[in-house]
């Protein structure tokens, strides 16, 4: 009489069983296409919307960040509100901070928003007009295209001269701004230079700008300079630079509510954090449809187990163990869900590209987003396939064989 042996090739068996279960799963998905698509619909919508939301939010974040980055991240903007006439800082005081710390700062320029209407001839137009110092071009990585930038003499002698960005040159002056005039608050400024394109020469971009000497701007507006832009050697020096500015200002003002220092690199991490949180919230909401999709799969799998009771009985009579049956149904659920995930990913990529074109941002899903969505859809199949699979594996072979 033979002795019953335990299976030595358990590993092999499991592998074989998985590939067969996988083949069977694909077969049953393909034989009832309508039902499979309805089963997968929840997962398709869930994965699709997760991909779309992540892509759009990522695109939006990148768009905002690139705007900030074109302004430079090694930049600290200092606003001084002042505290009466006794506790005030002069332009020279602010320059002294730079002079004393040349190892961290690249330079400093006062910056003044120019109020007052902009006119080309008799026509009003809008642009970002700033009063700045002669080194502003170098500090902010601008390059001159035609003519020259502001000079030390322009600043010192209150010259009424202006340098314009490529958008203004192209769209307001038809590319012939040099030598022409711009009227700011009723005063005529001669355009002495045109800057090279820095962003994309569109309205409201960095190229939509006009620079005049800060001294002139201050004089015309009858107001003192209160904003300074410090440029550090690189972003690593930002916090050290901030501290040294703060020291000077605090010792003069004796209080920290009379000035404000904005670190552009902080701003960027704030934006990243904010959009990150928003993405999480939106994806969380989209994730609910993944849950609903999972329940849909569970539902159909439970029906499938009932329909295939006899098959389960046959398999058990042939020696299938609980885990064999369980594995088969879980693989089937996971395959269905994963296929839904793949369809959802494809739809997500197409739709987010299309939406990105409409709102003019680059919204391409990252490989990470795709991998994560795919893994989640497989995981959902396994999770929600577990209950039906467990039910199948516990069927009594005798009852199952008798089932019609």
């Amino acid at each position: 009489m033979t002795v019953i042996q335990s299976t030595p090739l358990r590993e092999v068996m499991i592998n074989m069983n998985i590939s067969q279960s996988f083949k069977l799963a694909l077969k049953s998905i393909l034989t009832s296409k309508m039902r499979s698509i309805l089963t997968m619909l929840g997962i398709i919508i869930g994965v699709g919307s997760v991909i779309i939301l992540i892509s759009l939010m990522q695109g939006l974040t990148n768009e905002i960040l690139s705007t900030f980055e074109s302004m430079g991240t090694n930049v600290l903007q200092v606003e001084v509100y002042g505290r009466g006439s006794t506790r005030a800082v002069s332009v020279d005081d602010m320059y002294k901070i730079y002079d004393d710390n040349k190892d961290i700062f690249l330079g400093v320029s006062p910056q003044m928003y120019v109020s007052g209407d902009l006119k080309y001839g008799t026509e009003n137009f809008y642009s970002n007009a700033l009063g700045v110092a002669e080194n502003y071009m170098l500090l902010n990585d601008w390059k001159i295209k035609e003519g020259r930038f502001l000079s030390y003499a322009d600043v010192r002698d209150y010259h009424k001269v202006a340098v314009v960005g490529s958008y203004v040159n192209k769209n307001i002056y038809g590319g012939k701004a040099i030598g022409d005039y711009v009227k700011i608050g009723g005063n005529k400024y001669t355009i002495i230079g045109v800057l090279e394109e820095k962003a994309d020469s569109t309205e409201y971009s960095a190229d939509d700008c006009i620079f005049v000497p800060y001294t002139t701007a201050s004089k015309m507006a009858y107001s003192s300079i209160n904003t300074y832009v410090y440029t550090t050697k690189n972003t690593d020096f930002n916090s050290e630079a901030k501290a040294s500015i703060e020291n000077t200002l605090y010792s003069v003002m004796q209080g920290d509510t009379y000035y404000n220092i904005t670190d552009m690199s902080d701003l960027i991490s704030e934006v990243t954090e904010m959009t990150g949180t928003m993405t999480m919230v939106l994806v969380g909401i989209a994730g609910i449809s993944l849950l609903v999709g999972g329940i849909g799969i569970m539902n159909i799998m439970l029906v499938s187990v009932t329909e295939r009771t006899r098959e389960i009985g046959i398999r058990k009579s042939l020696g299938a163990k609980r885990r064999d049956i369980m594995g088969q149904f879980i693989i089937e659920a996971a395959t269905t869900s994963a296929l839904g995930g793949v369809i959802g990913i494809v739809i997500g990529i197409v739709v987010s590209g299309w939406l990105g074109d409409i709102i003019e941002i680059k919204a391409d899903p990252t490989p990470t987003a795709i991998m994560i969505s795919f893994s989640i859809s497989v995981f959902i199949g396994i999770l929600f396939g577990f209950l039906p699979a467990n039910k199948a594996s516990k069927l009594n072979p005798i009852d199952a064989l008798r089932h019609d």
Partner: protein
Amino acid sequence: MLQTGVSLKIYKGEFVAIVGKSGSGKSTLMNIIGCLDVPTSGQYYINGEDVSELNDNKLAQIRNKTLGFIFQQYNLITKLNVLENVELSLLYGGVGASERVRLSKMALAKVGLEDKLKNLPNQLSGGQQQRVSIARALAGNPSIILADEPTGALDSKTSREVLDFLKQLNDEGNTIVLITHDNSIAKEARRVVRIKDGKIIYDGDSEHAFERGDD
């Protein structure tokens, strides 16, 4: 259904028919012999091993290695082709892919269906389907072949073929247990065990099994 006091020994190489009307307890006996169920009390030894208190997984293993089932309704899986159906028990037994195909093809050749490997069950006649299920039962080279009303769904000519084939398998040394309600089928076996009301009322050679006429 089965009452106490049933004692039955089946030896290697025997061809035993268990016969009884429905409700006689033969199904319960078959389920226990087939390791599909365990007795509420008493022992069942198979190949010298007590299997009366084994758990589901152990029973599955015994079914896989020791038993080959032939059912009245063939019980083939409709979505799998002939070869895949025959491979199933080998698959659950952990036999590697190439060996599985080799053994399955051998079993199918034995029942004369080597040219139908890729056919689906519903493309075959009833007799052919039953032969596939015989091949499936044979493929793993089990100690016992358990045939539950194997001719129940077949016409008399095909039934004859199946019975002759079972006899041939027995001649080749296979142990066969045939379960049936039909006395004339039971007579084909060498030994007949008659069950009535949960008790064995006859256990002996098939020639004298139905002499007393008390059905």
